[in-house]
């Protein structure tokens, strides 16, 4: 009964993606004071494992103070804070190595780690992610086996209740979950996640696999893969979907946490609104061609050469909430739509089944909820119309053959 009431309540109070970008002076003044106190508190601590200073590493990479401050203004704007927060954001970036991070990896392609590691010429976002106090990350750590286990144990013990847990990859919960184990103890991914999540301050699910199950959860989902929020309850969870998640958004979340000690404002899918409050479509550079009805009809045609809209090639920008079209990837160099391929909706739930079919929804084969043969919605619709037409045809033919008859049953 209570479950039912809760279900109804949650159904009708689903939080939307609505973004409140101006909360008034009183709110921001209060937040400013709170952030200042929080940073003063953090500065009392020595940097954790990673003692590299941000200013040093930035100058080594060839960034001067001016570049850094430009980044600070952009990040402040991205976090939807007023410009007088800029000095605080700069300070927060400098003390980010005081916040311990544990990074776990489950069923995925390590694409989010790769996105950070393989960028040519790290941008400031990526440098900052390198200087965070990353206490544990299976993919890039030197230790292995029992040493790695011991390190995780140490990190969890030392920073109990204080560390941010980053999770990459989905967690198998169905048949075959026992094939995905970690460590000599043969701990399943699910047990491992629960153990490390228990003492985390907050959990950041990075990438679409960790947030919504992603590609491993695509139909028929053989491993019963789910995202973190399906399993972990009673902890603040922040989802940063996309495939891979944009490093700018990861830094944004950590910065927000460092600044305020709280998770940023989230939408109904637990995605930070500063990054997922708008559709890709709204700020797309090809939007004018969408409105004009100028579409790429096939790869490499005149439209493609002239940067026409990719909607007919299956672009899902109009249904996908993310800031790719603003923040872009790889030092804001480019992004999928920029290089001529439509959005595949990788930051939405069930994107592989529902978005990434490379054609408009009306032409896509969609599995009916009841199972059975995949059909496009239009094929299904034409089937409905055909059935109606056949029914009408049979009835009309039978009526014509039977002839007119009056209510008293007499042939006229």
């Amino acid at each position, binding site marked *: 009964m209570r479950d039912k009431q809760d279900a109804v309540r949650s159904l009708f109070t689903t939080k939307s993606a*609505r973004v409140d970008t101006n909360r008034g002076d009183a709110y921001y003044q209060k937040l400013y004071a709170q952030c200042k106190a929080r940073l003063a508190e953090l500065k009392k601590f020595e940097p954790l494992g990673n003692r590299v200073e941000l200013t040093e590493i930035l100058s080594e990479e060839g960034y001067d103070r001016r570049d850094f401050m430009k980044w600070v203004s952009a990040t402040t704007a991205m976090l939807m804070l007023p410009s007088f927060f800029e000095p605080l954001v700069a300070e927060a970036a400098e003390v980010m190595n005081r916040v311990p991070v544990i990074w776990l990896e489950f069923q995925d392609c390590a694409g989010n780690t790769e996105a950070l590691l393989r960028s040519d010429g790290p941008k400031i976002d990526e440098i900052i992610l390198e200087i965070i106090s990353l206490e544990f990350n299976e993919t890039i750590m030197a230790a292995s086996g029992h040493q790695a286990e011991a390190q995780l144990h140490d990190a969890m013990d030392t920073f109990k209740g204080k560390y941010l847990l980053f999770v990459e990859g989905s967690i198998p919960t169905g048949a075959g979950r026992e094939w995905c184990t970690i460590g000599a103890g043969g701990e399943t991914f699910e047990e491992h996640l629960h153990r490390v999540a228990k003492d985390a301050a907050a959990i950041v699910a990075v990438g679409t696999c960790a947030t919504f199950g992603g590609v491993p959860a695509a139909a028929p989902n053989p491993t019963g893969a789910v995202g973190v929020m399906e399993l972990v309850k009673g902890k603040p969870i922040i989802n940063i979907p996309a495939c891979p998640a944009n490093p700018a958004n990861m830094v944004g979340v950590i910065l927000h946490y460092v600044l305020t000690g709280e998770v940023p404002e989230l939408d109904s899918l637990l995605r930070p609104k500063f990054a997922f409050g708008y559709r890709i479509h709204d700020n797309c550079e090809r939007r004018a061609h969408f409105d004009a009805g100028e579409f790429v009809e096939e790869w490499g045609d005149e439209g493609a050469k002239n940067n026409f809209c990719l909607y007919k090639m299956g672009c899902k920008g109009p249904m996908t909430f993310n800031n790719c079209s603003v923040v872009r990837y790889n030092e804001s160099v480019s992004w999928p739509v920029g290089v001529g391929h439509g959005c595949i909706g990788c930051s939405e739930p069930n994107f592989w089944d529902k978005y990434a079919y490379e054609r408009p929804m009306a*032409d896509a084969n969609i599995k009916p909820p009841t199972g059975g043969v995949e059909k496009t919605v239009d094929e*299904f*619709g034409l089937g*409905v*119309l055909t059935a109606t037409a056949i029914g009408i045809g049979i*009835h009309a033919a039978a*009526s014509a053959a039977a002839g007119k*008859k009056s209510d008293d049953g007499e042939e006229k």
Partner: protein
Amino acid sequence: MKKVEYQNVKRMTSTGRIIHWVNAFAIVAAVITGLYIAHPYYQTFIADPAVDKYVMAWNRWIHFIGAIILDVTSIVIAYLYFFSRFEKPYKKLIPTTKNIREFFAVLGNLLTLNRHKNFDSSHNDSFNTVYFTILHLMLVWMLLTGLQLYVHGLESGISSIGSWWPALLHLATDWTIPATGGTLMDVRISHHEMMWWIVAWTMFHIYYQIWRTIYWQEGDITIVFGGNKFVKKEK
């Protein structure tokens, strides 16, 4: 042969007929433009730069205007279902013994190709009222899912007519996301699929009215044009 005399019966008010044709044209416009929005099926043959030809934008505009007209008439029809001074259709929807019997009598008349006609065909019958109500429920679903798709463009929470508009839309339609399957695409699929059911509904509706006209011989098709039909009065 018996002598048959006909009596004129009023069946639709002029308001009702206006609503019917406004609905019909709005649905046709929404289907034509909706199919374009789902999959742009013609090319833009206008030799202007992108900035002023607006083919998709005009299609979407016509789709929204058609939708808003349907939304307004839906509200009027919902009101008239209960408070019409001419005929209150809700009375034909209450599952009383009389209505259920009439429903199956009319259905039986259709299925037996007019061999049996044991009901009073002078007034709006239970079967047709249920059939019309199905259309209106489908239109309500289109209204809710359509406004959900529409409000995605108003994420800022502001609009030129005030912030109450997106807030109202979120409050009224956000539940369609979990109801259709949990993603924004499910809402879109549902919206598109329901269009086909409405087209199928229309096909049968037109056929059935013509069939009635031919086989009942009471001029039913004229109801929607002149508001009247004729009922046989036996002498």
